[in-house]
């Protein structure tokens, strides 16, 4: 397209000499940027009429045509008469098309600016509504769970077992590795202090109590939130995007029964079991550290362990696990149902699901500590 003055690549140029404006080069999207930067600083002559000579323009596409049309529009708005000549036929057609394309406003539309107070108010109301949604979701889940308890035959055991394998069995390696390492760290840090007092044997108390009461349930819940809670959100969220949730509803299947409850049941079983496993592996990690750092032999360790750690401590730790499981499953599924429309929303909700469930787990754990100290357990 354009007159044949060679096909070498040159950027679009525009030069003003009195009332004559000479345009040349490729007025195409790839070669337009020097001109785009130059135009706002362009000094037009004060002549009442300007003549644009387009003969040296080699090629023109819609972008070039638009830039020309905009320049002409701006000039005419200042009261300058503009004539064009030498525009090749095809480029002329493009120019007319772009010029007539209505709906291109002077200023590109911008999202409406909301005043700070309005934004604050709207944000607060939204946050409140979110809380309401969350509470409603918990209520719905509880109600569905009660119905299921009254009719245990309706429990979808196949789904529960599948989720159990996914959330429990497949999490064994990572839970094992991390709690073993945690045991080593606690053993090492405690050992350094205890050796100063010659109280080597008390490393058993330290490892046993901290692992069983606090660390094993907490680390397990955090791993499960990151591994399984996020998967729940992504799965339900993607089903939401692809309208699979609506398809389930239209078939008269409650998504609650098919998707949420099996996950909740599976996690209520899996998390305490994982916690027991983390207890064992974590204490073993501490044992290994105690042997090498403090010369506490395995036999001595286990003997001391049964004196130092009561059954209560063990039960306190395991008792927290189902609560954590309920938090992770509920938050994960709730965030999944909150997904709307796009792939980006799935990502955002998955992040929120992990952050919120870890936060809730730690807050609840703190609440447990306060409660236990009141009760003197």
């Amino acid at each position, binding site marked *: 397209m354009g007159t044949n003055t060679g*096909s070498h690549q040159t950027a679009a140029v525009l030069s003003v000499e009195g009332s004559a404006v000479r345009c040349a080069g490729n007025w195409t999207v790839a070669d337009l940027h020097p001109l785009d930067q130059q135009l706002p600083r362009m000094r037009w002559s004060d002549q009442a009429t300007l003549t644009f000579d387009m003969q040296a323009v080699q090629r023109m596409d*819609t972008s070039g045509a638009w830039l020309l049309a905009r320049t002409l529009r701006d000039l005419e708005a200042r009261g300058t008469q503009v004539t064009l000549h030498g525009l090749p036929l095809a480029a002329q057609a493009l120019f007319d098309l772009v010029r007539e394309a209505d*709906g291109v406003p002077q200023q*590109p*539309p911008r999202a409406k600016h909301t005043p700070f107070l309005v934004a604050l108010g709207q944000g607060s109301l939204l946050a409140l509504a979110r809380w309401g949604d969350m509470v409603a979701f918990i209520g719905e889940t509880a109600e569905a769970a009660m119905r299921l308890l009254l009719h245990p035959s309706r429990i979808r055991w196949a789904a529960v077992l599948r989720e159990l394998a996914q959330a429990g069995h497949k999490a064994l390696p990572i839970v094992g590795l991390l709690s073993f390492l945690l045991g080593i760290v606690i053993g090492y840090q405690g050992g350094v202090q205890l050796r100063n007092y010659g109280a080597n044997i008390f490393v058993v108390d330290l490892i046993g109590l901290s692992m069983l009461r606090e660390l094993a349930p907490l680390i397990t819940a955090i791993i499960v939130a990151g591994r399984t809670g996020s998967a729940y959100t992504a799965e339900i969220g993607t089903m939401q995007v692809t309208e699979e949730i609506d398809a389930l509803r239209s078939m008269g299947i409650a998504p609650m029964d098919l998707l949420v409850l099996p996950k909740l049941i599976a996690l209520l079983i899996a998390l305490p079991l994982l916690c027991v496993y983390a207890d064992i592996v974590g204490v073993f990690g501490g044992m290994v550290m105690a042997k090498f750092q403090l010369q506490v032999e395995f036999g001595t360790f286990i003997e001391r362990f049964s004196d130092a750690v009561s059954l209560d401590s063990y039960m306190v730790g395991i008792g927290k696990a189902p609560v954590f499981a309920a938090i992770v499953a509920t938050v994960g599924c709730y965030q999944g149902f909150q997904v709307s429309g796009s792939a980006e929303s799935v990502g955002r909700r998955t992040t929120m699901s992990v952050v919120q469930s870890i936060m809730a787990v730690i807050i609840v754990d703190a609440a447990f500590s306060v409660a236990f100290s009141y009760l003197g357990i």
Partner: protein
Amino acid sequence: MASSDEPVIQIRGLSTRYGKHEVLSNVDLDVRRGEILAVVGGSGSGKTTLLRHLIVLARASAGSVRVLGQDASTLGEQALLALRRRIGVLFQNGALFGGMTVLENVGAPLREHTKLSDRLIDELALVKLALVSLDADAALLYPSQLSGGMRKRAALARAIALDPELLFLDEPTSGLDPPGADALDDLVLSLKAALGPTIIMVTHDIDSLWRVSDRVILIGQGRVLGQGSMAELARSEILEVQSFFQGPRGRAAQGRPLT
């Protein structure tokens, strides 16, 4: 620049295999500059694979694919990217980026590949939106807020953002109501008249084939079963071609009474 009578796409002996399954076997195809070519074929006939070759997203097992005068199999990653810049694709479901507004979606290729100012990019995006008859009001909406027809138009605006020489349309009228499909056909024809790209479209819509296409190729069992204008294909003696175009729908679109 390639001379105007050289085909924009030239395929010779193209074969593609996934494992033992041969999707395309020994396909030859020329696409002339400036035509509207329609690719039709039943489900699983290999037309999607062919399309992926044409937009240089797939590599051939055998044979050569020349797109805009360049042999796709010999190009490095950088050259492929440069080649793809000259190609616009309208994907079947639009494939608009969900996290961006319509305006940002249309401006995305410009922002990525040119050094133009933000103001000019926004204006150009609005020009493209006007070319596909979308209001400036729609520019600030997100794809999830658009109707099916608007989504196709927005995606088409993005496909023509860089004034491509080759424009691919994958099922442009699918999922649209009849007036919407007619309007999209008109839009394709007017864009062709205004911007002059070579258009290659995959479609099942027989009405759209009659109205829009200059030439049609029918793909089946991984081969080109027939090619020519719609009128020629409708008269074809070849059995597979007949069975594709002579069904009740094919006849209704031709305006002939059903027998």
